[in-house]
């Protein structure tokens, strides 16, 4: 989610809540006998507010699991998640009077700080990365589907190469890619062309030694095809060795390799966009559980 004009309302509301909380804290800190702390009524109020904000932020996870619930738009929940989650930090600091005095409160404070920092990191990544991803990966697919798509691309490439070699045998180039899958099916009949056995053998050699290994492990940077520049040179050289009539299927192979590179970029950016959740989500749920126990015990005593 981009942090833009649409956040203005949440930002203003958060600033007002923060200002009221801080202004209220000053006389409380000055005149509370024994000093401010979580065990005083104002301190308890700050704690309830802070924990409620954390709970609200946490409920966004449940909201995502139930997209059909009519409880407000997902985007509104996300904005609330961002601002209430961030606001919970000053609330908890005011609740504790800027001190973690016990082992559990120290752990809770640490969890809160890490959770919020990871959340801020995620928010920044979500703000900047998707735009770049769209620009650099026009053939983006669903992340989880990348292995399936890659398998399809491999089959398509094999089909093209097989088509080329069959065409050589029959005197016509027939490219039938996709191996039966309802994918990019291209049938192309071109004028009869004579490919020498050497050229045929060369295509198979190039495919088996360079293209297929890259398609099998497209994330590896060892292959020259992992680089757009080197891939260009590679396919230009290949085209120069082959008649013009087969340049189009060669171009398809080049396009498949380019798509693979895009999927590699998508995988990396996806990890960048989502890896922080491996810290943020587990710690935030742990924080909510331990924070709830802390609240119960503290209220009891």
């Amino acid at each position, binding site marked *: 989610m981009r942090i833009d004009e649409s956040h203005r309302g949440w930002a203003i509301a958060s600033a007002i809540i923060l200002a009221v909380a801080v202004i209220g804290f000053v006389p409380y800190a000055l005149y509370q006998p024994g*000093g401010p702390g979580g065990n005083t009524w104002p301190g308890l109020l700050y704690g309830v507010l802070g924990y409620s904000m954390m709970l609200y932020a946490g409920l966004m996870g449940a909201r995502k699991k139930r997209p059909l619930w009519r409880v407000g738009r997902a985007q509104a929940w996300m904005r609330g998640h961002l601002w209430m989650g961030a606001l919970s930090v000053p609330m908890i600091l005011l609740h504790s009077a800027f001190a973690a*005095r016990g082992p*559990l409160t120290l752990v809770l404070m640490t969890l809160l700080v890490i959770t919020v920092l990871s959340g801020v990191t995620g928010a920044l990544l979500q703000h900047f990365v998707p735009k770049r991803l769209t620009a650099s990966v026009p053939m983006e697919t669903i992340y989880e*589907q990348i292995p399936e*798509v890659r398998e399809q691309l491999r089959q398509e490439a094999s089909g093209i190469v097989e088509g080329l070699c069959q065409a050589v045998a029959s005197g016509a180039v027939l490219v039938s890619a996709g191996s039966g899958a309802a994918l*990019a099916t291209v049938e192309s009949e071109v004028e009869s062309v004579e490919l020498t056995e050497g050229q045929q053998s060369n295509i198979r050699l190039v495919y088996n030694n360079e293209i297929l290994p890259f398609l099998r492990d497209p994330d590896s940077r060892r292959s020259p095809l992992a680089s757009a520049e080197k891939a260009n040179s590679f396919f230009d050289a290949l085209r120069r060795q082959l008649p013009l009539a087969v340049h189009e299927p060669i*171009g398809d192979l080049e396009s498949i390799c380019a798509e693979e590179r895009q999927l590699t970029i998508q995988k990396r950016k996806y990890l960048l966009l*989502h890896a922080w959740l491996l810290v943020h989500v587990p710690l935030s749920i742990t924080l909510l559980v331990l924070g709830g126990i802390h609240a119960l015990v503290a209220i009891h*005593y």
Partner: protein
Amino acid sequence: MARIRNTKKLGQRVDRTYLRKLYPIPQWRRILTAVFVLAGLAWLGMYAVARNQTLYTAGNLTPSHAFLGKNCAVCHGASAGIGKKVADQKCVACHDGPVHQASQTFTPACISCHVEHQGTMRLARVSDDGCSGCHGNLQTKSGKTSVAANVESFQSHPEFTAVKARQDSTGLRFNHQKHAGEMSQKCGDCHVPADTAQGLATSDPHSHVSSRALMSIPTYAGTCMPCHALTVDDKISDAAPHDKPEVVHKFVVEQLTKYVAAHPADLGTEGTPRTAAAWVQFKVAADEKKLIDETCGRCHSFTSVAGSPGLEAAAVSPTHVAARWFRKASFDHAAHQGLTCASCHPNGATSKVSSDVLLPGIGVCRQCHTGGSASAGANCSSCHVYHDWSKEKSVDGKYVIDQIAR
């Protein structure tokens, strides 16, 4: 015809059942969530099994209460709940807290002054708010007060009573200027810290003043005698005792009687009587006049019975040298030993009469005890103790060790 990669074709790549499968990142998110939550619960569980509640503490207990930290219920009670505070009964189960003043209009709860869970601090060093809450506008049951009725802080504390009196009725004559000025004696030559053996310093375990808090009262035997021996007469080799007049009179009579018995040739010389009894009487009268006028009289005043000018019927005016000036507060000289004596007692070397009050005024204290963050302590509890420990009673213990230190 080249490959077609439009949106439709790209969309057709997707297996639409993918939502039903769990992929690595969501899977690891779940695994890590379970691991962290379970680790947190296991951590709490371990402490629960060990019946140790120190995890939940709102802050470290003071060292004297630290051993109670494992069991919150010892102080908070098993039936604690929201809004409930530690009851006084829990405190007085171990400590007696004598009343402050019989005439006080209300008694605050123990925890309103003694705030726990603040780490290493003195529980007796309470906030001024608890004091000024009453003393800022003092009300008593009788409606009368013997202390200032509107003290909010050390800045609004009235001048010390002894300083306001401007008169120290010691009943003695002493010239500080003569000793510390002309003779350049040091303060410490006469004034040394008292210790508990002299019974001047408090031995109250709740007091924060040291055993060297007060200065001892200079005594004749310990301070004056080396320079001011009580010489009576050249015919009496021993000095007179520093005692009551009748004792000194008896000493003088005995010494002169012994002398004349040993020196009968002195009878009738220098205009003295010729009989021993008359000689002794004559010499006693002369010697005791000298004692009253010069020797003893240098420091003491006498009241004599009419018609009997000697020591036999004389009485020394009562003396009172204060060892403790503050009757309702404590002061610790040992805590101030880094200062020169003259810093606080500037008239110590210039005062000529003992009636001068050399106790420093509150303004001297306020030079350091300003009340700011860079100040020496200016809390009420720096000098005053709330509980009247003279009324402390013993406590009947209620706990067994397992209950409080499990």
